[in-house]
């Protein structure tokens, strides 16, 4: 029963995700794209539930959808392109971009079709939850990721400082562009 349900959800959410992704990429209005992006990320979160990684789904929804997309919307408004009607890229650009995308998709698709992927077990298995992840994050031992944890904190700090310095320079001391 659960497997059947997962098939349904898989195809439903898959379709949803792909549809919204095309909107993000194709829509003329940027704001509409941002909203579509939110939908795509939400759909992915749904996939995580399906795959049994609830914690990750939560994180995804919280950080990605909550934080990142909101930030993007905020900047869209800030740069006054709320109503911006971006003109559709010329046909030539579209073809080239399509070719570039296909150029990636086809080989990977080919590899996936022909190469022997390890067979998988369908029975619902409980992926390790937040407790195991937390334990892994701070474990000093062989399989721990404490160093990565520290580094990511430094990275976020630097991003913060960088963002401030660059953004502030624009706002506070606005010199007329030379």
């Amino acid at each position, binding site marked *: 029963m659960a497997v059947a349900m997962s098939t349904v959800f898989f195809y439903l959410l898959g379709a949803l995700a792909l549809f919204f992704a095309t909107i993000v990429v194709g829509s003329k209005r940027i704001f509409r794209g941002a909203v579509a992006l939110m939908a795509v990320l939400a759909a992915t979160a749904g996939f995580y539930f399906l795959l049994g990684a609830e914690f990750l789904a939560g994180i995804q929804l919280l950080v990605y959808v909550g934080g*990142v997309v909101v930030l993007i919307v905020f900047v869209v408004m800030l740069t006054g392109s709320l109503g911006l009607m971006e003109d559709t890229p010329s046909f030539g650009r579209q073809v080239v971009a399509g070719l570039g995308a296909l150029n990636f998709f086809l080989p990977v*698709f080919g590899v996936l079709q022909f190469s022997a992927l390890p067979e998988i077990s369908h029975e619902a298995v409980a992926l390790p939850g937040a407790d195991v992840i937390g334990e892994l994050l701070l474990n000093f031992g062989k399989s721990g990721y404490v160093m990565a944890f520290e580094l990511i904190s430094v990275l976020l700090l630097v991003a913060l400082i960088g963002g401030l310095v660059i953004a502030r320079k624009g706002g506070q001391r606005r010199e007329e562009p030379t």
Partner: protein
Amino acid sequence: MIDWLAAHAPTLKHWLILSSALFAIGLYGVLARKNAISVLMSIEIMLNSAVFNLIVFNRYIAPKGADGQVFALFVIAVAAAEVVVGLAIFVTLFNRRKTLDVTQVAAMKD
């Protein structure tokens, strides 16, 4: 009906194809869109498909461990940092150039 659905459960190949499709669409976005922010959004999609890939592998290849999820976590954090920096640069670029159209912003050529 149920067993037909059960028979057609998504295998690893379907998951991967889905993620690569998302990646491809993101790629199309990067190449086609003119506005910098749209490009950034397309990159977010690609990042997202990569994270999705990780989780799929974690679920099907190494269900015992949670390495995949940990890595996914870190990638999300990095993506966030990237967006922060990106948008900061876009804001200042907009203040100076009054446009975010990537094709216009090409002062440095050959």
